[in-house]
Structures are given as C-alpha cells and as structure tokens.
C-alpha cells in the first residue's frame, strides 16, 4: 500500500528541485513530539558560487500522510504517532512522531515565555522596560522566568489569567485588542501563538516541574555564511534547541528573528530572510537567553559593471577588491598627488601642509615618493602629538577627571608612547597593570578616571575588547552573548584595585590589594574572574588579577585584542571602521569585510603589535589613496571602501588650519602660546568660568569631546546650525580674518598683488592654485570693491567657507 502511495506521490511531483541539480536537505532526521511539534525543512540547491534556497518551491512527498503533512513552505505538521519519510528529490528526511495521543502540557519556560518574547511583549520598549507598562512588568526578554511566572499567574490576585474561561484572560484580550491596548495589536486570535498561550492557561498555567529538561543551547541552520544572488535572494532559516535530556527540538516558531541591516535583508517572524539590496547582513536568532547568528552576502549583477582589475599595492587591497568585486562596486582610482598630500598630512599630523611642502612633493619625480612621505610624517613630532590626542580622548584625560598635573604627565606619556612606537600590547599592559602614584606613574591615572570596579571593567571592555558590556549589569545583554554572570565575572579582575588619596593635590595611589571579591547582586554568589572564550579562571593567591587579565588579553590568539586596535587605526584614517562604531564589536554588528579585518589583525600580531607598521601598511594601500570622486557604480557604497569618503575636519584640525592660514593661531589657557589645538593635552585646561556663560566655545561646537566618557561617540560628527553660524559670522573667524597682524594684512602691507594673494590663500587652504574660472570671479569681486582691504578679507572668508577647505577628501 505504502509503495503505491509513494509512487503516486512521486508521479505527482511537479515543479520543484530541477532534475540534475544537487540539493541539500536539512534536517536529515527528526523526532517530533506532540501536536505542537512542528518543524521547518530547509532545502538548498547548489548554485556554484551562490546557493539557492528552494524550500518554498520544492515538492515534498510524504510516504505516509497519516503520520504527517508538509506545507508548501516546508513546515512539517505532525498528525499521528508513527514513523515515515519525506521525499525531496533524491533526498530523504526520516521523521518519527510520538506523543500525539495525549496533549502535551505547554512548557512555561520553553514555550510560553518564548512566545511572549516573540510577540515583543518582553522587549525593552514595552513590558520588559524597568517599570513595565500599564502596571505589567516582565523581565527583559524573559531572562528571569521565576519572576515572570509570579507576574503572570499571581500578581494582583491572578488578574491576568482566567482559569475558567481562558479566552477571557487579560493576557489574551489585550494584545488581540478586544480590550484597548496601547501596545496595539500584537496577537491574532487563532494564531499558533494565541493557541499556545490559551492552551497554557487552560492547562492550569503551570510553571513546569523541577525535573523538566532545560535548554542548553540553540543552533541556526544554515549557520555557515551563504552568498545569495538576486533574484534568488531569499533564505529560509530553521532553529533547533538542544536540551539537557539529550533531545533536540525545532523551535523555529518560538524563536525571535532579527536582521542586522534591514536595507540589505529583512527577516520575517517565520525565519524567512528576504534580500533587499547588496551587501552583508547578519540574521540573528534568539531563543530564551541564547543568541546565534548567520551571515548572508547578497550580490546582484549590476548593469555596466566590469571589474577593472586595478593593481593591488598590498594584501589589504586584495581583500578590499575581492569584496568590491563580489558586490560589484567599482574600485576608485588613486587620487592626485595634491589630494594625497593634503589628506595624509591631516590624517597623520592633523595639520595642513604648507605651500612649499606641496610644491616639493609635486616636483619630486621619485616613484616611491608617497611611501617616503608617509615614513617622514610617521616619524614627526606632530604625528606623535596628534595621535596621542586620540588616546587622550579614550582615556578621559581631562582636568575634571584626573586633575591638572596628571593631565600633562599622562599626555606626555602618551606622546612618548606614539613617538617611540611602543608596541600596543606593552601599551595596554602598562595601562591595565599601572600602579603607584598618579603623579609619578601617569598610566595609573587610568584607574582614577575609571574610579571603581565596574567603571574600570566597563572601560577596559570597551577600549580593549571593543564591547559595550554595560547593558549586562542588570540583565542579560540584549544584543550580545554577554550574560549578567559574565559581567560580574569580568569585574572580578578589577575589584581588588585600591585607590588612595594622599595629602598632595591630584595624587592618587593605585595598588592591588590581596583580598576582596565580587558578588552577584541577585544570587550573592562569589564570582570568579571570567573572560570570554577562556571561561572562569583560577588566579593564584596574592597575584594581581589585572596581570592575569592583561596576559589573557594580549595573548596572540586572543581574537578581540588585535582586531579592536587594528579596526580603530583603520577607522582613524579611513573615516569608518571595518566594524563601526569601533568600540561596538558584537555578533549583531559584524565587520563589513571580515577577511580584511582578520588579515589586518594577523599582520598586527605578527609584527609584534607594531602600530606604525600597521598604519604604514594601510596608508600605502591603494584603498587609502583612492580618490573620493565617485561614479554611478560606487557612489552608493558607504561601507566597503570602494572610494575615499570625505569627512569634515575635526575641531582641532579646523582650528589649527584656520590659525595657520590666517596667521592668527588660537591661544589656549594654561599651555605655551605655540601649542596647537592638535597638541592639546585636554579640552578643559581652563576651569569653567561661570561669569562667561554664553561665550561659545568654538571647538565644542565642532565636536571636541569633553572626555567624560570613553565612548567614541563623544566626539560629535554631525554638522549643525551652530557650526554654520560660527563659520559665517562667528567671533573667532572674524577676529582671525580681520586682524591687522594676520598674514593677509601683512601681505597687503608688503604690497602683494591681488592675484598673488588669491593664489597664496588657495595654496594654503586647498593645497592647489585657483582655476581660471575661480580667478576670474575673484578678480571681478575685487575690482568692484569699494575697500580693497575689506574685499580681500571677504575673499579669505570665502575660501575658508568652501567645503573643499572644511573637508578632508
């Protein structure tokens, strides 16, 4: 009988997996338990470089249709106990169905709570927020099942569930909007989620037996990265959960799916990812406290695209080009020498190149002149000062945080670290294990700015692991694998740091004590030091735990350490990290070019964490030296480095540029008159003067960070009305432009002609002479003028308001 059915079904097979195409079916076998034990099949056709998901076009032949059926979307619906096979092409899925005769009780932990997460009830913007909504509070994404059980079943005398008429439970009436629900319609009556919640209530709203098998982890399929080519840009996912009793269950219908980038692909509640645009995307799945992710790359044939096969200057270019080629973005050619020198100076020293330097560079016939210039600038003092300033931002070097004296000492220490090209692992170790007086050992100020255990741990995690772990202080991290236990475990490396004040102003003695533990605030358990991937660690008594942490951190195979700094260095010169923001590494925020980041990190480690070497490698690449001019074939690319992305000068760069062009550099309180903005040790050397409220601080308007947090976001990079006003008619600009002892007026006094003045201004600000049309416009303006002086001031103003000046490009 069965054979005949099978044969009949095979004949009935119409469309579906093409004859001859190799297909892969997941899973190969399954045990299904109970009427709710549905499962998702995933069928893939091998398309060479790409894979094609044919789950929804495959034909599913069921050997014994009494046991189960399969929907056109590839979902198995169990019907009766038994064993059978599902036939797809030449592949077979063996299925065993059991427990269909007796209704299986709904598991609170494994079914009810996940459904509430899936519906979004326990999300941070709804009932999972700290105070809940409308008096109803759930733990964020169900990280506390015990609390949730009490809330759902007991709170307010059992208000939310109705054991006699389950459909009248408040927990069902509200999200279906049978009663007004500010959260809107989140549940459809008769949907599987509704039926499950109703069944749970009808079954007595039980919380589960103590002996219930617990989920130990989840797997997403497909888990390995896939490349999908439009129009075959869909991918169905399936999720399996493993339990402590050795069983595996399909939880696709209980999991929550998210896409890391909705303009590359969206993902539905049923786990179907649909491509929207080119690029990389991560599909994230959550079930209970577990998060897993899978990478997809979506590619498309672009009209008119032909890979130009540009030369690669080094491995870096090769990896960038591989990605560009895959996604069909055109690689921009190299920029001109003029553009290059201006860009390089700004990136390495923060300063504009002066006209002579530009002339010399242009005139130089050496084919390696760019590499040589890079070397020269890397060794310069301005480079050390400017790049030390970047670490100053991260280490909160400010008067408010560490005191005036230490500001100078730490700042000098940082300058020295860059100037001597101290290896990054030594640098990190010096900071993390710093001890002694903050006046004698500048690195000890790290622990002054990070004034307590949790601050020190969060700072270290963000700076050296690129991870914003703070969220996990109170609950499991919403976006990452960090759990609350991990948070307190990591803190255990830093809790024995003692900080003692002395009689001397601004002095703090930092040392490691021999005792003290971190306890979990909820369980009161003592937390042993824990680090990601390494797990809990045993630290010998009396040993400084920070040294153990630093050792773990700087080990060659530590996946985080090298990547974070390599990415940061890349971000500083390219304008955007491979992971962006550069202190936010997480599975749900993947690198836009993972092989590139991995290669950079590997190079970094192999070189002995030589930062200058890494910088040199990046700067010598064609990717860095590419022009910022775009073509239709790459203008949409914001992430894959097909061209250089222009960005506005930073506050410090702008102030120094204005100063050097006008000959009236800004003066800063508390430092020598010659000190430039790009050398400033701290933004708040002058104590805040309450009497002068209203005096706009030019640099703050242009994004200078206050250095009160370690977040890279503290440096503002948005343009604003305030900036526009400063540039148009701000006090600083006006003063610099019109000053009688400024360069402009000096030239006027020296009898320099109009054309020459215009030329000099352009060379200084833009590193190029004016083109004919510009010169004509300026001549006309100057000829028309009543006052030559004023007209020339206006001309200077015009140049300084050009985007070409304000941006590095």
């Amino acid at each position: 009988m069965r054979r005949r059915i099978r044969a009949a079904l095979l004949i009935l097979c119409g469309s579906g997996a093409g004859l001859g195409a190799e297909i892969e079916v997941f899973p190969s076998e399954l045990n299904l338990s109970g009427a709710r034990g549905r499962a998702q099949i995933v069928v893939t056709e091998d398309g060479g470089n790409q894979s094609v998901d044919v789950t929804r076009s495959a034909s599913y032949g069921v050997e014994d249709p009494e046991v189960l059926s399969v929907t056109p979307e590839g979902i198995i619906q169990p019907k009766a106990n038994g064993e059978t096979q599902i036939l797809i092409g030449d592949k077979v899925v063996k299925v065993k169905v059991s427990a269909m005769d007796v209704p299986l009780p709904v598991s609170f932990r494994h079914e009810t709570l996940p459904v509430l997460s899936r519906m979004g009830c326990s999300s941070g913007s709804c009932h999972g927020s700290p105070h809940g909504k409308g008096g109803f509070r759930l733990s964020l994404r169900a990280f506390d099942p015990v609390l949730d059980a009490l809330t759902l079943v007991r709170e307010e005398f059992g208000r939310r569930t109705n054991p006699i008429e389950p459909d009248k439970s408040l927990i069902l009436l509200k999200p279906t909007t049978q009663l007004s629900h500010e959260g809107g319609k989140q549940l459809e009556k008769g949907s599987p989620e509704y039926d499950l919640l109703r069944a749970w209530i009808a079954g007595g709203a039980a919380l589960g037996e103590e002996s219930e098998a617990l989920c130990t982890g989840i797997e997403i399929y497909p888990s390995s990265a896939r490349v999908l080519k439009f129009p075959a840009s869909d991918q169905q996912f399936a999720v399996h959960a493993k339990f402590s009793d050795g069983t595996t269950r399909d939880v696709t219908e209980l999991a929550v799916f998210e896409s890391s980038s909705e303009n590359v692909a969206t993902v539905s509640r049923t786990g179907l990812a649909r491509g929207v645009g080119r690029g990389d995307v991560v599909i994230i799945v959550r079930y209970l406290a577990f998060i897993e992710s899978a990478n997809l790359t979506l590619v498309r044939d672009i009209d008119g695209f032909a890979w130009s096969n540009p030369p690669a200057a080094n491995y870096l270019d090769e990896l960038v080009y591989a990605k560009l080629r895959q996604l069909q973005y055109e690689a921009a050619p190299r920029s001109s020498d003029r553009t290059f020198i201006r860009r390089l100076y700004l990136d390495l020293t923060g300063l504009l190149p002066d006209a002579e330097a530009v002339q010399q560079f242009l005139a130089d016939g050496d084919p390696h002149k760019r590499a040589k210039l890079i070397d020269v600038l890397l060794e310069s003092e301005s480079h050390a000062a400017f790049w030390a300033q970047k670490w100053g931002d991260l280490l909160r070097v400010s008067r408010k945080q560490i005191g005036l004296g230490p500001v100078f000492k730490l700042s000098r220490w940082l300058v020295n670290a860059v100037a001597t090209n101290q290896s990054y692992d030594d640098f990190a170790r010096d900071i993390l294990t710093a001890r002694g007086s903050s006046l004698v050992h500048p690195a000890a100020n790290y622990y002054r700015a990070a004034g307590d255990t949790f601050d020190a741990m969060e700072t270290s995690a963000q700076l050296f692991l690129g991870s914003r772990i703070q969220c996990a202080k109170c609950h499991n991290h919403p976006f990452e694998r960090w759990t609350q236990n991990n948070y307190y475990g990591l803190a255990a490396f830093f809790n024995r740091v003692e900080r003692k004040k002395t009689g001397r102003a601004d002095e703090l003695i930092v040392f490691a004590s021999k005792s003290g533990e971190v306890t979990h605030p909820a369980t009161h358990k003592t937390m042993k030091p824990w680090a990601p991937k390494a797990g809990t660690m045993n630290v010998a008594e009396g040993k400084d735990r920070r040294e153990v942490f630093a050792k773990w951190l700087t080990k060659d195979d530590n996946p985080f350490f090298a990547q974070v700094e390599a990415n940061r260095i890349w971000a500083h010169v390219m304008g955007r990290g491979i992971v962006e923001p550069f202190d936010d590494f997480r599975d749900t925020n993947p690198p836009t070019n993972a092989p590139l980041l991995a290669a950079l990190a590997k190079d970094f480690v192999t070189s002995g964490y030589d930062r200058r070497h890494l910088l040199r490698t990046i700067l010598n690449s064609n990717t860095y030296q590419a022009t910022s001019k775009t073509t239709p074939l790459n203008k949409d690319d914001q992430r894959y480095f097909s061209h250089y992305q222009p960005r506005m000068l930073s506050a410090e760069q702008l102030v120094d540029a204005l100063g050097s062009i006008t000959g009236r550099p800004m003066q800063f309180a508390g430092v020598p008159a010659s000190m430039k903005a790009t050398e400033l040790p701290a933004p708040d050397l002058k104590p805040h003067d309450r009497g002068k409220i209203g005096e706009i601080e030019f640099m703050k308007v242009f994004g200078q960070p206050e250095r009160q947090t370690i977040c890279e976001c503290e440096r503002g990079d948005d343009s604003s009305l305030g900036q526009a006003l400063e540039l148009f008619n701000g006090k600083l600009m006006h003063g610099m432009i019109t000053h009688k002892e400024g360069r402009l007026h000096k030239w006027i006094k020296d009898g320099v002609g109009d054309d020459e003045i215009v030329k000099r201004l352009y060379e200084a600000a833009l590193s190029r002479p004016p083109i004919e049309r510009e010169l004509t416009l300026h001549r006309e303006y100057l000829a028309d003028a009543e006052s030559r002086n004023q007209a020339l001031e206006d001309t200077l103003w015009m140049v300084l308001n050009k985007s070409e000046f304000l941006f590095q490009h």
Partner: protein
Amino acid sequence: MRRGGFLKSGRWLAGALMLSTGSAAAEPVSFARGIAPIFQRQCVGCHKAGKAKGKYRLDTYSHAMKELVAGNLEESELYYRITTDDEDDRMPVDANPLSKQEIELIRKWIEEGAKYDAEDPETLLSSIVPMEEHPAAPESYPRSLPVTAMVFSNDGQKLFTGGYHEILVWNSADGTLLRRIANNGQRTYDLALSPDGRFLAVASGAPGQLGEIRIFETSGGSVVAAPFRGDDVALAVAFDPKGERLAFGGADGMLRVVNTKEWKEELVVRAHSDWVNAIAWDSAGHRIATASRDKSAKVFDVAAGGKRLTTFSGHSETVRGVGFHRNGNEVISCGDHGLVLRWKISNGKKSGDLAKVGGPALRMLCSESGYFVAGPKGQTVQLNLDDQKRERELVVAGERLPAIGEVVEHGSRLAVGTFDGRVVFFDLETGRRVREFVAAPGL
C-alpha cells in the same frame, strides 16, 4: 471586539432585541442602552479623564458631543473616524474596526439627533450603562479559582466565597456546598456582610474591563442594588460597625460611601492616585483607613465630609492591608515589601515595626482574636491584639508557590483561602489545621 463570549452573555440580548426592531426606525436608539456600552467598551480605555488621547474624552455624553454634530453625519468627526479606510485616522487605533452593527447603531443615533436619555450629561458612562446581567456560572469548574474573597455568616455556620460569576455558600463545618448565588461579576475581590446579616456586599469585576459593587439580599440571593460600576475592578468593601453605611474602593482610586437605606452615594473622595486595595472602618464608624497601590495609606474623616486626616508614606511598595488599632489613635498596615507597620494618625509617623513576613503580605485581618497577616509562603502570621507582638504562624502546606488570597475569622476558627483554590480552616485555640476543601463546584 469580543464576539464569542459576547453572544453567550445575556447582555447582548438587550442590544440584539433592539437591533432586530431598529431597522424599521420604530424605536429611536437609546444612548444609555445602545451607544454608551459601545463607547465604554471600545473607546473609553484611551479617551477618559486622566488619559485622553488626542485630548478627546468619550467617557461622558457632554465630552463625546464635542466631536459630534446632532443630525449631521458629515460634520461628525467621530463618525468619520470609525468609518474611514485611512489606517492612520481610523478609530479604534491599531485594532479591528467597530462592527457593522455598532457603526449602524451609532449612525442611526446621530441622525436621530444624538439625544441623551439619562439624567445628567456629565455622568460617567460607566454609571449609565445598563446593569449587567451576568452570564451563568459553569455548572462544574474545569479548574479551581484562587480564593480571593470570603466572609463567614454571622453565626459562623456558613462561609461565603467568591466564585466565577457567582457567590458560593458553604457549610463551614463540613465544607459541603449549600447554595450558589448567581448574577455576580466575573471575579470577587471582597465580601462583606451587614451586621444584621440581611445584605451581602460584593466587590467584583472583570480585570481591565469592568468593576462593580453589588448588594445581594442574603437569604434570597436577589440583587438589591448596584451602587457602583466602573471600567476596572472594585477591590474592597466594608460596612461600618453599625451597618448604616457601606464604604468601597477599587481600581479607580476613589473612596465612596453610600448609606445602606437606599444605597445612595453620600461621599466620594479622590483618595489615591492608584488602586485602593483595602478599606477599614474605626470602631466608632467615623473614620476610614485606606491602603493603596500608590504606596501610601491614608485616614479619612467620614463625619467631616471625607476630609483627609493623615497620609502614611512609610511603605515603599503597594500597601495591601489596613486596620485601626484598638486605641483608635494608630493604624496598622502591611504591603508588598512584607513589613507590618504601625503608625500614628495624628502625625502620619511610624510608631512600630511589627513583623517581617519575607515577601508580599497580601491581606490583613483585624479581629477580636488579633491581627492576621497573610505571608507569601502560605503562612498567616498572628499578632497580639494589644501589643502586636508576633504570637505564632499558621502554615498552609502544599503547592510549590503557596500563597494566600484571603483570611477571615469567626470565633475560634480562622479560614484561609489559597491561590490554588482551597479553603483551609485552623482552630485558633490549638493552632492546628482542622479541615480543608476545594472551594469550586465539581472539584
């Protein structure tokens, strides 16, 4: 919109009858019977005092009329909103639209002149909608219901408990079911018997939808009055010691007092900013103490028109139980933080930390035998009447998360109602558990 359950309830009968004759335009649409229930059910949730989305209220006739023009559908913004196809404009927001019958009824009513057929156009709709004819209770319960309200009969021989749309009357000696009083709200949160035993006052409701105070005639079980109807549960009800007045409160945070002659309102006080959980009269019947979810407990002077005498803010969590001290100068209260506190009425300051119960203390009983506080682990803590010293604990066993929904006492017996639906009797002389039964018919 509730479809299935609606049809089963008697309430729809009235509406259906009306509709079946309505289309012939013989009878004009009644606002109180036809329109107010729709507004109450579908709109008032987001359009009422204190929460008026779009600054529009629909909880009284005069407020509703602000967006209606009698006789003119086109100018009536409300009508546009319930019938438009524009998803952004349509009401109710983010939910299924009103049914065709509901829209038709509203249309007819507007066209007929949008008339008001109750007394005062400023009255809350919840007071003018017809009294619920509650659905019948199930013959036998599929599952037990938490016991959240109980009261002994005056002679102690019977125990009344709150059932599902009914009050159950049990023989307190052997736990057999004697009677079932029908036509009650879905869940009962408090029961009170008048001192003369004639009337049974019930605080009930359907969570999130309806709240009621109903007065039953004890012997016959008929509904004598329904002095309060609101849009969420009523939680506490208490007769004064002489039986002349009845005080009650609930989810709307108001304290109301009616006289027991005609059940007419004497006092309405905006007592709390959140639910009123418990109410207690002093021994003279002059003052009322209230416990609230707004984390405070207060004392009001009924004789002086409901003037607030004092507020006690020493609870850092929801206050659940309250009762006067014998001396009349202090009040004892308990709450979710598990502490039982005593405080002075004169200055609202704490005068004693009486007990810790290790979790939420959901109920407190003040009786001649002492103060009884329901703790979170199935224990009822007994405090001495005079000095409130802890005397003993009476523990209910069983279930993984034992919890108590109500505690009542008569003579030498204490009855404790649990969340898993049992009533457990304790002998107060020996402190022993003497009997228990499941307070659900059919179980």
